[in-house]
């Protein structure tokens, strides 16, 4: 075999393997661990809810799909399906909170009503409350 053909075959083989590995990597990519990434916004629960209440359209454009670090007081803790957990944060409104969903939580006693918490989540928008998904705790104090 000519050296040129050998090199060409090697290059093709290398590209094919790299392609398969890249495809597998992207396919298996998990949702981001928000503890390790910088938030796009740092805001209090009260200000975040107020922003959506006052102008849903502008706030949606600003916050949806963005990583938000939000802080506030826990007013309710509710276990969801499949080990997920929902906590609500106090806002200026009696009826509308910031609801944060954690994908898997092993120790639910970690979250207590009345605690001050700082967490990061991806904003999925505003229903009756501001909804954050894929949350991770940054700080949790009594």
């Amino acid at each position: 075999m000519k050296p040129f053909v050998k090199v060409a075959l090697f290059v093709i083989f290398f590209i094919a393997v790299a392609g398969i590995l890249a495809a597998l990597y992207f396919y298996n990519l998990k949702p981001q661990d928000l503890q390790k990434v910088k938030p796009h916004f740092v805001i209090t629960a009260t200000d975040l809810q107020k922003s959506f209440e006052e102008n849903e359209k502008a706030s949606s454009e600003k916050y949806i799909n963005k990583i938000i670090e939000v802080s506030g007081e826990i007013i309710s803790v509710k276990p969801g399906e499949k080990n997920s957990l929902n906590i609500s944060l106090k806002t200026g409104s009696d009826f509308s909170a910031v609801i944060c969903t954690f994908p898997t939580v092993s120790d639910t006693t970690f979250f207590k009503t009345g605690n001050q918490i700082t967490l990061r989540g991806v904003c999925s928008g505003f229903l009756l409350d501001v909804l954050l998904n894929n949350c991770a705790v940054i700080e949790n104090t009594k």
Partner: protein
Amino acid sequence: MKRLIFLLIISCLLVTANAQKYMTKTGFIGFFSHTPMEDVKGDNNQVASVLDISTGEFVFQVLIKSFHFDRALMEEHFNENYMESDKFPKSSFKGKIINLSSVDFKKNGTYEVAVEGDLTIHDVTNKINTKGTVEVVSGGINADSKFNIVPEDYKINIPGVVREKIAKNLEVTVTMKYTPLATK
């Protein structure tokens, strides 16, 4: 606008609340697709729902972006290619328990119910008829249902290359834990 109407309904309910209305903001709706090639599931734990036990009417509302997947790429395709969640951010179901008389909301227990209503996904509305269970427990009501939907019924186009990976019929699971709507 839809949210305003929803809020209006709820504030009306608040005024007249007399333990007839039940609510949750953290209900669960998930869907599951099984094919020999791949299993896909999306979970949403942020479902808002109100149930009126005097009429049997209920409403669900979800944000499409609240569906969560095991793989980041699935979530991206779901939002961008199939559901177009920037254009159609919400999905809703407005329905009714048909055999309301067979449920005794004063007595704890599990009751079989038949429900019908309008399901809106991807801005397309279809009638849904299905069965479910209502469980009356101390301090609340649990409701469960399972039914199938066909993505094409909601004008969700799945390209040929990946069509084999997504089931023709998606199984939708609904699990709600309602608590009485408190009067302020």
